[in-house]
């Protein structure tokens, strides 16, 4: 086992260290860590760390701590938290861990052996911050890397009061084979699918600059994590008069191609082949009726109908399109797996009615184009600061 951060030693040994919700030593540590992430050199190399630094600014931290307090109960740390973040998203472990640390928990984060790039930069910044932090930080906050050693996962699982499992269905099932203490529970982040919706009337009414800004935001949402993040939009719904759908799809794809080229998003040959295999596969079974390959980066897929909605990943830059008259038509096809719904051109009332009609049976986040990947303390339908704390009620 490799210790990546924090004091080496027995991870599950009883500890006398006590942290409070919103502990000043944690806030101090996170604030200084955030400053390192916001340094121009770091943010240039890994723009996603800039967003992370922004999320951890002192004002944001104080707001999060305030949100943990309640008028009807005393708030305390949940206890020991074991985090199993995904291998491929370099920064999600930091969000998960930082909120839990802010809640005063003792944390062990398992960093994947496959992690690289931004994750290494994060660990460097964490360790540099640790040098002049209160020693309690290193004793209570630990990050480790180990292989497929069930004994370690088992020991950490029986140590934990809360186990946070990212990485999709397979990861959740694998980790869940290890029992928790009766009082403990899991916070799971299974496979998710995310969508985008364009109001065709809203698109028609928008000027060039507005359309461009929308497409730019959409491009970031889609291409940042090879369209494979749980919140990356995949199928695009064209909502409105079906007579407008083809024209809007063409305009959108043309602008998308131009923005992708300008921004320099590229797709390597292996990914291009992957997309062909998946797009041809959809066509073969009749789920797709039209395929357009405008270079390798942008693949347009016209779906036969709403029933053909694909929920599996099709490769980076693969965009199925399907036309519906009204957002209400989407309500029956959304399900619990659906997470983020990015939108453009709708009114606030339309979106609110849509969310109300969904009734929590699917879709956890409804956000404008460009915000799909912006992490927030409310995620996947969970209020994370609440999950990371426990409540004591007091009647006198």
């Amino acid at each position: 086992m490799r210790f990546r951060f924090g004091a080496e030693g027995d991870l599950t040994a009883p500890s006398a260290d006590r942290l409070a919700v919103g502990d000043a030593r944690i806030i101090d540590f996170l604030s200084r860590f955030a400053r390192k992430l916001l340094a121009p050199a770091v943010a240039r190399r890994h723009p996603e760390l800039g967003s992370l630094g922004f999320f951890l600014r002192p004002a944001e931290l104080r707001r999060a701590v305030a949100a943990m307090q309640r008028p009807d109960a005393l708030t305390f740390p949940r206890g020991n938290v074991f985090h199993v973040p995904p291998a491929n998203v370099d920064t999600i472990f930091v969000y998960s861990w930082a909120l839990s640390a802010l809640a005063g928990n003792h944390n062990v984060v398992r960093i994947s052996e496959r992690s690289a790039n931004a994750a290494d930069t994060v660990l460097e910044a964490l360790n540099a911050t640790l040098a002049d932090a209160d020693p309690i930080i290193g004793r209570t906050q630990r990050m480790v890397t180990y292989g497929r050693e069930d004994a370690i996962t088992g020991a950490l699982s029986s140590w934990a009061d809360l186990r946070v499992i990212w990485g999709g269905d397979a990861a959740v099932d694998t980790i869940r084979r290890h029992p928790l203490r009766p009082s403990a529970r899991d916070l799971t982040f299974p496979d998710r699918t995310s969508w985008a919706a364009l109001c065709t009337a809203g698109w028609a009414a928008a000027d060039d600059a507005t359309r461009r800004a929308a497409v730019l935001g959409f491009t970031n949402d889609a291409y940042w994590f090879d369209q494979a993040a749980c919140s990356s939009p995949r199928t695009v719904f064209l909502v409105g008069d079906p007579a407008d759908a083809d024209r809007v799809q063409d305009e959108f794809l043309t602008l998308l191609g131009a923005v992708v080229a300008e921004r320099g998003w590229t797709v390597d040959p292996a990914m291009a082949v992957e997309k062909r295999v998946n797009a041809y596969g959809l066509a073969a079974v009749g789920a797709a009726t039209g395929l357009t390959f405008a270079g390798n980066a942008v693949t347009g897929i016209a779906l036969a109908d709403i029933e053909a909605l694909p929920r599996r990943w099709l490769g980076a830059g693969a965009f199925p399109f399907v036309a519906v008259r009204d957002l209400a038509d989407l309500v029956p096809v959304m399900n619990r797996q659906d997470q983020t719904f990015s939108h453009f051109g709708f009114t606030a009332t339309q979106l609110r009615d849509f969310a109300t009609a969904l009734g929590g049976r699917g879709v956890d986040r409804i956000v404008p184009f460009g915000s799909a990947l912006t992490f927030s303390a409310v995620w996947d339908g969970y209020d994370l600061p609440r999950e990371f704390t426990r409540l004591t009620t007091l009647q006198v």
Partner: protein
Amino acid sequence: MSVFTLPQAAKETALVKELSELVAHHRAACPPYARILDASGAGDRFDTVADLPWLPVRLFKNLELKSIGDDEVFKVLTSSGTTGEVSRIYLDKAAAATQTRMLGATVQSVLGPKRLPMLLVDTKSLLKDRRSFSARGAGVLGMATFGRDHVWALDSDGKPDVDAIRGFLAAHGDQPFLIFGFTYLVWLHLYEVAREHGLDLSNGTLIHSGGWKKLVDQAVDPDEFRRRLRVDAGLTRVHNFYGMVEQIGTIFLEGPSGGSLYCPDFADVVVRDPDTWAELPPGKPGLLEVVSTLPTSYPGHVLLTEDLGVVHGVDDGDWPGKRFSVRGRLPRAEARGCSDTYQGGAAPRAGAIA
């Protein structure tokens, strides 16, 4: 008799006609294929081989693609991959017979018409292992029909059986004989043994396949492979080949002077630019597309492989037509993403199935 006879211009004319007919045939007989072509806007008239619509070879792992009725299926071939996905290739009686006949004609181009005594550089126990049987076993069995008096060069543990090899050479070594095996097995278990024991393989013709990846560690490239076999074992007739179960019966065979693979008269290759998908001229490496007129029972007549290759020249080598080599595989597509399981399926697999 040889199947390496047509100069490129004549071959192109013949193939465009036959393959265009196959496109129409499969379009009529294989609805999923027709839907793919319709969705991607493919026409029905093609001026060049490079204009023909291709399918990614991996599609045969995900879909059942056949142009014959269920009651006409005579044989289902499978290829193994490390991801557990397998290609399924459906043959009717006619296609099965044709592929055997054309494979025979191809190897007879270098072996002559008579069956030769055959040394198989593999182990008999290979045929018992159901799992590896589909790929390596099928390859060995397919090629075994072109020889006689077979001897296995490896024992049941996969170690060289020196007595068996010596016995084979004592009986047949003074006249032409055939050696067949996977490239790395030939190198590790026949070449090294022949050198150590001073075996004379000079009357042999070696046909081998399976890729060079395992030999790269030992710094053995195709030229070195040929040179060492010649110098240390007297083996001068050496033919590598490239082929895949998805185009069963078609193999691209190395010419007598080595260094290049050649296309039989009923097949060809197109090297494509992986960004524009346009055909690349000789000398420019790209993604390899293989075409063949043999697949009549399934739409495998124009396939984009996940192998990288380069055409070295046209009508300028041992035999007419294009000469090319294979330069390894496209890496796997892998995405960053929240789920740990987003991966493409471009898994390495055995290079050749006969």
